[in-house]
């Protein structure tokens, strides 16, 4: 039981830090609120979907940018999608990066942006995966996930 409380405290601290450091925003809270008994894995499902989608998008982006003549319109639409999905799960920093990215789209200078966006994405992915692992641990230890306010 002691480990559960410890894990729970850890979970809270970790979640708080994710919000404080801007990895996540309220939209993620929204997602958590949508999860209930009838749909216990909703957040994980959505976020996994997001991971899948993001990796596909990043690949597409990388390919698009490697073309001899870059189709900026296409790049822009990829980034737009990335922005949409990241904002839907509340991955704030990725969203911001995408906004930045799109601004650069007009200036047609993207190499650095892709790297940064990728970097931000991997960061938030690791963070969220860690969060989910923590959740799993709490659940396995028989505790309940603490509600975040």
């Amino acid at each position: 039981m002691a480990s559960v409380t410890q894990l729970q405290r850890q979970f809270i601290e970790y979640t708080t830090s994710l919000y404080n450091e801007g990895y996540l925003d309220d939209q993620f809270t929204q997602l958590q609120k949508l999860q209930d008994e009838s749909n216990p894995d909703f957040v994980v499902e959505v976020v996994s979907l997001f991971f899948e989608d993001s990796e596909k998008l990043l690949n597409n982006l990388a390919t698009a940018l490697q073309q001899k003549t870059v189709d900026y319109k296409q790049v822009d639409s990829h980034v737009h999608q990335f922005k949409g999905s990241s904002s839907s799960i509340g991955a704030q920093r990725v969203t911001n990066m995408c906004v930045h990215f799109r601004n650069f789209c007009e200036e047609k200078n993207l190499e650095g942006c892709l790297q940064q966006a990728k970097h931000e994405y991997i960061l938030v992915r690791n963070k969220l995966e860690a969060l989910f692992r923590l959740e799993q641990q709490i659940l396995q230890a028989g505790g309940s996930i603490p509600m975040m306010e």
Partner: protein
Amino acid sequence: MEDDNAEDMEVEVLSSMWPEDIDAAGKKFNLEKPGADQDLLEDVTFIEEPTIVDFQRLLELTNYSEKGSSQLSYLVKNWEWKQENAVRLLREELENLSKQQHEVELKKLEILEEHRFEDDSYGGDKRPISILDEVYEIIPDVPKRRNDVIYQDQRLEIDGEDDTDTVKYWKQRALNLEKLLELSVNREQILLEKLEESIEKLEKQSSPVEELSQILKRADNFLHFVLQNAPVVIGHQDKDLRYRFIYNHFPSLGEEDIIGKTDVEIFKGGGVKESQDFKREVLEKGIPGKREITFETELFGAKTFLIYVEPVFSKEGETIGVNYMGMEITDQVRRREKMAKLREEIAVQKARETELNKTIHITEETMRAKQMLATMSHEIRSPLSGVVSMAEILSTTKLDKDQKQLLSVMLSSGDLVLQLINDILDLSKVESGVMKLEATKFRPREVIKHVLQTAAASLKKMLILEGNVADDVPIEVIGDVLRIRQILTNLISNAVKFTHEGKVKINLYIIPDPCSESQQKSEFDMEESESHERVVWIRCDVEDSGIGIPETALPSLFKKYMQAGADTARKYGGTGLGLAICKQLVELMGGSLTVSSKEHCGSTFTFVLPHKIPHACESSDETDDFKDMDDNTSTEDDENCGFFQFKPRTLGSLFSSNGSGRAHGLTGTELNFEKSNSENNYSTKYDSFDHDHPFHDPCIQKNRPLNPDAQRIHSNGNSGGISGNVHEKTKSLRPKILLVEDHVVNVMVAKRMMRQLNQDMDVVNNGVEAVRAFQRCDYGLILMDVCMPVMDGLQATRLIRSYEKTGNWDEARLAGVELSGDHIPKEQRRRIPIIAMTANAMSENAEECFANGMDSFITKPVTLQNLKQCLEQYLP
């Protein structure tokens, strides 16, 4: 060269005057040396004299004025001093000579006497010395010589005593002396002659008049040289301000016209009097002064002179006249004035610029503030609607009386705030030009009826609501029925609010075109610019027998946040925006809204709107929104019947506030409407709205889409098989929602939210699919992503709207959408609400959405509240 001009110009005038006056002047000059002058003056010739001079006056001046006399006396004294010096020297010499002569004569006498005394004793040896004497040069140094002589004489005497006293010697000596004397006399003679000659020469050569004249002449020449082209007038005037002297470079008058006259006598026009007065002032005060005077005379036109006037004093200190000097500065003044004007203009320009900047700044601020307000309202609306709807749900649960009471207050407050926010959003939509008007066919009688019905439904007073539509009002017209309904609802609820007993009436009738055809171009005139279409102007009076509006409050009545009196808001509630919105809407539609009122008797709000009349052929089969819902039998009657009346049966029943009691609150044929409502399952929501918080202020509900709801419900129930099938398929009577979204994550989130909201939802991934889905099924609401592959949300919306308008899918086919043939013919030509989902909140994106026919938008990421609020607003 210098005086050529002057000579040419003034020779005639002047030559005549010099000679006679010169004598006088001459006299003056030679005052101290009388005698020598007269003759000398004749040598002097004065030819070039460009000035007009009153010499008598000059004389007087030099005699009497300190300045004149001192100037002359200085010259004279200088000359005199020189002359005196020379004369003194000559006199001295002359004196010396005569003294010498005298001495010599004395000597001679002495010698002669001596000689007589000692006749015998002649002889002596005086000779060598006298001979020596003879050789002497006499003229240069007189005193020296005299000494010599004396010395010689003494020696002679000494010699004489030493030598022998012979007669011969003395004789000899006398002879010698005589000779000497003779010589001396001769010399004297010569000297005298020389003296005479030199005096004569001296006087002749340096005659003061000539010299002075020459000086004067030179000065004069210089003056002329300097002044010859200067735009200068120099003058002297005596103490009566009569001209005594004038120098004018461009004389336009002869001397005789000027000398001895005053300014006023010489010429007339602007500035003359002023200059004269100025001169007189200087004369009186004795202080020199400068002034700029603009003359406007016939003589030389409009010219500005800078005038310097100084007083001239006599030796006694009295002012005897003025010297005056004027310089023409017309050009400078003109330039200066131009500069001043320019400077002024620049200043004005600058002021205007700052003003403009300020205005721009203010405008920008206002725009920003409006934007802020809109954004904020938008943001506030979502959580607030959450609160209100939760409270509504709460009110359906078991509560005791107190709780119910509290809840109803809470609900009405919440509703008021919601209303206020909706109003603000409406206003900012109109003001920012986002508000788009629809042009749809509608039946005015139906509209009036429904508005009154709605008002009656929430009526809590003993009021009679009446509608009166004149026979000449067409059965169908074209316009934005939603907005017209909004206006009417607003005015009616206002009227009801301020009327405690009596009637609230709507009168509808046709009026002649208030302005010429060409001038009235309202927005929907533009949209369908079929020139042959007839336009009617329909006037609508909303009349009540209420408290009326004081005349002082009338002007500010349509202003935002204004209510007639300070206590009105307290007493009657309301946001103060309703009338402002009405006015703006009416004006947006090309009409006008006015009010007339009598305190304690009632008010009449009148709006006049242009409406087009649809083609007769279409009107038969095309049913409009308000084709009567359930009682088909009464359709014909309704079409022609122009009179409606609603009144509450009893006050008591109104406050019973039970769902069932509600229907009895209404009389007349419209009861069917309510009844059918209760038959329908889906009416629960509608009913709960109105029945469960009966203390609502009626005005609050004006924007609630009650009638479209009801009508939809009825249409579903009424149109029987077709729409019923759709609902059976989905195992729900709920209107279905179509989500058009290409993104999996978003879809997942939205789906989950919808489940939370207990709504069913179909999902398609792009615009083309959306059009197909719309064609296939009957949806109640479409949530449309804007950015999508294949076809974006804007185009899909356009295609759907086009179908709604034309009834065919031609445009969609043109756009390349493949449609299945088995499309369900839609009984209702109802406008489906399409809500955009955009990633960029409150940007031009929103305008684009509205422009393409969307009704509203939700910003992404979508939140549960946003979605819920949206469904509440648009989904029946």
